[in-house]
């Protein structure tokens, strides 16, 4: 799993960038990134029963938040919208990104979408992804 995620050159660039930020003492939270590229940022923990994916996406519109699992991939979709009563407000400072986001993670293991759970609280999306039951090895007959 780690090898696949890190081997991609852009992912590796991001990782190096994060390391540099850490070295220079600025704990730059990953959710400061714009909503393009690798958003939402994730942490992945491997457990016996499957994988736990924590994603940081504060203020996501709950109706737009969607998680799909297919094959070995999980896709997180959502949208950050401005507050309904602030449509005509005059902004003095605007640091929080708005708009839609999509991220697909290839996890390397076949997943079981029926046993995948997602919860969203305090702006954190918590996914419990179950691995698919091991398929029995198949013997391939050799034709002469």
């Amino acid at each position, binding site marked *: *799993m*780690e090898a696949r*995620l*890190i081997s991609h050159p852009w992912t590796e660039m*991001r*990782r190096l960038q*994060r390391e540099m930020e850490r070295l220079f003492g600025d*704990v*730059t*939270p*990953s*959710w*400061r990134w714009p909503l393009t590229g*690798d958003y939402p*940022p*994730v*942490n*992945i*923990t*491997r457990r016996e029963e499957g994988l736990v994916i*924590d994603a*940081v*996406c*504060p*203020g*996501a519109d*709950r109706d737009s938040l969607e998680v799909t699992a297919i094959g070995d991939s999980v896709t997180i979709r959502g949208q950050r919208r401005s*507050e309904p*009563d*602030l449509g*005509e*407000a*005059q*902004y*003095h*400072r*605007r*640091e*929080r990104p708005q708009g839609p986001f999509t991220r697909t993670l290839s996890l390397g293991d076949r997943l079981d979408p029926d046993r995948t759970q997602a919860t*969203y*609280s*305090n*702006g*954190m999306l918590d996914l419990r992804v179950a691995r698919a039951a091991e398929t029995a090895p198949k013997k391939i007959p050799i034709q002469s």
Partner: protein
Amino acid sequence: MATDTTTTTPAAPTREERDRATRTVAPRVDICELEKTYVLLADMPGVAQDGLDVITERDTLIIKGRVQRPEETPDYQEFELADYRRTFTITEDLDVSGISATLKDGVLRIDIPKSPRLQPKKIPVQTK
């Protein structure tokens, strides 16, 4: 003979050292103005209601959030949760006594009414 004046007493921790021990990040904010209020929105993912502090102190507004860190280290890590802290200066055109704060889905919203003193007033003109 020159005496060695080098002190051997360990120096008290500097301010920087103390700050590093309790390292915080500044949350991203939006600040906007409506007709009668100012609204501040701050992204504070990972903070629950009981971990949040909104403090006003004279002309200062401080927002603080404590996050719950996971017990186990992830196998693959892109973010690290840290406590939040950010300070704002409140100008005199705001009525701090009417402040209200709500937390929803990791976003803190603070509404501060504009001071009634600064609301436009019509002065009646008396005739003689």
